[in-house]
């Protein structure tokens, strides 16, 4: 069964004072998936999210929600954890959650019940009647996450949910996001922790300077990535690895090599080139992590053999991409 589209953005533009914050962006988000919206700071992610949330209207293009009546934005079906964090400092946790849930159409009694359940789950129940300013930053972040999902939305937009969290809480949030997915809640995830994004996302959209630079299924993107990484433990003279015409860059230390193969070099080619010349103890050939793909794409622009994209989403020309 093909996934249904829950969010459809087509050729969205937005500019402020002559600066193009979002410049012709198109993508779709499927129901029930975790969709990574990535990009460096100032790439236009927040503007894009605000357009999705109907806070800004796009200057051009459309943003539709095919599953809702008339395809329109329905605030009570969407949850949002903003990157800029904050809650009413002088209000009680209980009152705040009930109010925010109420704005999303949850009756007060039900909201209290759900709030309490969530707080118990996150071991914050004794703060139910406390004022928010008594909570630590991490706790406040949990309260905000609860506020984003307490009304059981179809689509949750999490903007930098892991920022400022310790590793334990990062894992907690990661597990919660997985749980949302298992309940068929769609998650639009924007984050800088590439290992977590890689771990969670089904598909990603990478935006830079207001434009798309990468878009598609994460697995596909990696499979089509131009370079392979080789991790090699060996005995013998490693110099030949450095000198090999197949290798783009190499770090060699104590019989352990980290290599990046030249674009388009297939793993078999490399293997046959070294067989018999080195004693291989252990070898792993894999695609680079998302972190590397992110950095490469943003700093150098999309690689020369872009992953195949749907027609209308293809980035045209070179302008607006990496400067180097």
């Amino acid at each position, binding site marked *: 069964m093909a996934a249904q589209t829950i969010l459809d953005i087509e050729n969205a533009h937005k500019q402020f004072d002559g600066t193009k914050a979002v410049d012709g962006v198109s993508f779709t988000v499927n129901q029930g998936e975790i969709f990574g919206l990535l990009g460096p700071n100032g790439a236009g992610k927040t503007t894009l999210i605000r357009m999705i949330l109907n806070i800004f209207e796009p200057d051009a293009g459309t943003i539709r929600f095919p599953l809702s009546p008339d395809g329109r934005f329905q605030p009570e079906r969407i*949850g949002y954890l903003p990157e800029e964090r*904050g809650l009413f400092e002088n209000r009680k946790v209980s009152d705040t959650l009930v109010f925010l849930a109420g704005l999303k159409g949850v009756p007060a009694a039900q909201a209290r019940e759900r709030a309490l359940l969530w707080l118990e789950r996150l071991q914050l129940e004794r703060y139910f009647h406390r004022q928010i300013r008594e909570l630590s930053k991490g706790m406040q972040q949990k309260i905000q996450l609860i506020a984003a999902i307490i009304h059981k939305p179809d689509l949750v937009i999490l903007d930098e949910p892991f920022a400022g969290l310790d590793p334990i809480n990062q894992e907690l949030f990661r597990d919660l996001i997985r749980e949302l997915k298992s309940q068929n809640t769609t998650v639009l995830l924007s984050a800088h922790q590439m290992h977590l994004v890689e771990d969670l996302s089904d598909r990603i959209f990478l935006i830079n300077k207001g434009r798309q630079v990468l878009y598609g299924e994460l697995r596909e993107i990696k499979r089509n990535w131009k370079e392979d990484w080789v991790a090699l433990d060996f005995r013998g003279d490693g110099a030949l690895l450095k000198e090999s015409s197949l290798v783009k860059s190499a770090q060699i230390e104590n019989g352990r090599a980290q290599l990046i193969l030249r674009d388009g070099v297939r793993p078999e080619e490399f293997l046959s080139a070294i067989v018999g010349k080195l004693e291989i103890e252990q070898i792993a050939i894999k695609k680079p992590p998302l972190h590397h793909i992110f950095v490469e794409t943003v700093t150098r622009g999309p690689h020369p053999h872009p992953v195949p994209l749907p027609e209308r989403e293809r980035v045209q020309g070179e302008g607006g991409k990496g400067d180097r």
Partner: protein
Amino acid sequence: MREALAVARWEFWQSLKSKTFLIATFATPLISLGLMALVIFITRTAVGNGETQLAVLDRAGVFSELQDHLDGSNYRVVAVSDPEAELPQRMQRGEFDGYLVIEADFFQSRQARYVPKPRREGLTVTLGRLEPSGVPRTVREALSQILLARALENAGIQLEQAKILSQGVQIVMAAAPEAAVEQMRAGLAISVGFVIILLLLFITMNSISWILYGVISEKRNRVVEILLSSVTANDLMSGKILGLGGLALVQAAIWAIVGLTVIFVGGPYVGLPTTAIGLAILPFLAWEKLLLYLVYFALGYLLLAALSAAISATMSDDLQSASSFGMSLVFIPPILPLLLFSLVLEKPDHIALKIVSFFPPATPGMMILRTAVGDVPWWEVLLSLIVLALGAYGTMRLAGKIFRTGILMYGKSPTLRELWRWVRT
């Protein structure tokens, strides 16, 4: 609309429960009442029982007559004897507040000397005694009557008769009932108008300062981000205006109830028949105008509150911006009628006042005052209502646009040019 009401309820109840509100509502009036009571207490002790002790050095033999005449007045006379030279010292010691020397030739010279106790500089509390500090009139009249009675008696008129004649003529104050009622009504209308304008200003300023504080802190702590994903900026703004306006009304009501209770319950304790006065003036209140005042108030409040919400939204997080200056400008038009108060009393139909009446931010105050003072043509009232309603609507629309963009702009205040761009889109 549902969202706006939810925001309004939230703002209203949360602020009502907050310590700041409770302190402002209950502690502030209590402290002012306490201060007032203290001032009254100090004043009363300083004035004493309101009687003036007058020493009389009587060389003409009129003391007992004078005592009779001053019986029931604020003066208590004591006879003193020579030497006169000692009297100033005795007065300084506080034995009496002044002394009167009546020479033996009083009936020929028709003179008496009065020496008041020198006042200490700067302390001129004369509450309860509205008499000039110069010659005490009561004493003068008493002496004149003694003089006259003696003269009449000498002219062969019987003593009793002479005494009665010497009382002179008494004027009894009375006014035609109709006119008196009219006058009372007019005076009341003006005072009620004045009080209503003050209340309007007070309520507006209170709730505006709450709006200002709320918007800036929500902007600073970024709660707006969450709120705007659920409600539109317009709903958020209207909710705040409604909720905090209601809160200011509640505060005003609490103060009015406390104030009236103090006046009616406390009045008799300080010798004011407040209940009787209240009951007497009640029928003269222009009830029919109160409804009109309410409409002016509501529209005026919406206008000013929307304006303030927009200005608060453009304020950068630290309050240090040109917008603070803009905020102080908001209050000038509504204060205008009070500044022009004396002109309104004299010439409620002055052309300048008419022009000000149709400048929406000043309309409520000016029209309330003008309709209170005199009759304003019905078309002017209607026109002012229309102008005000349009002004309020336009301001809310405009403010909504500025609010929507400004509330998400952190770190800097917009320039006028930017504001103009927001308004146009």
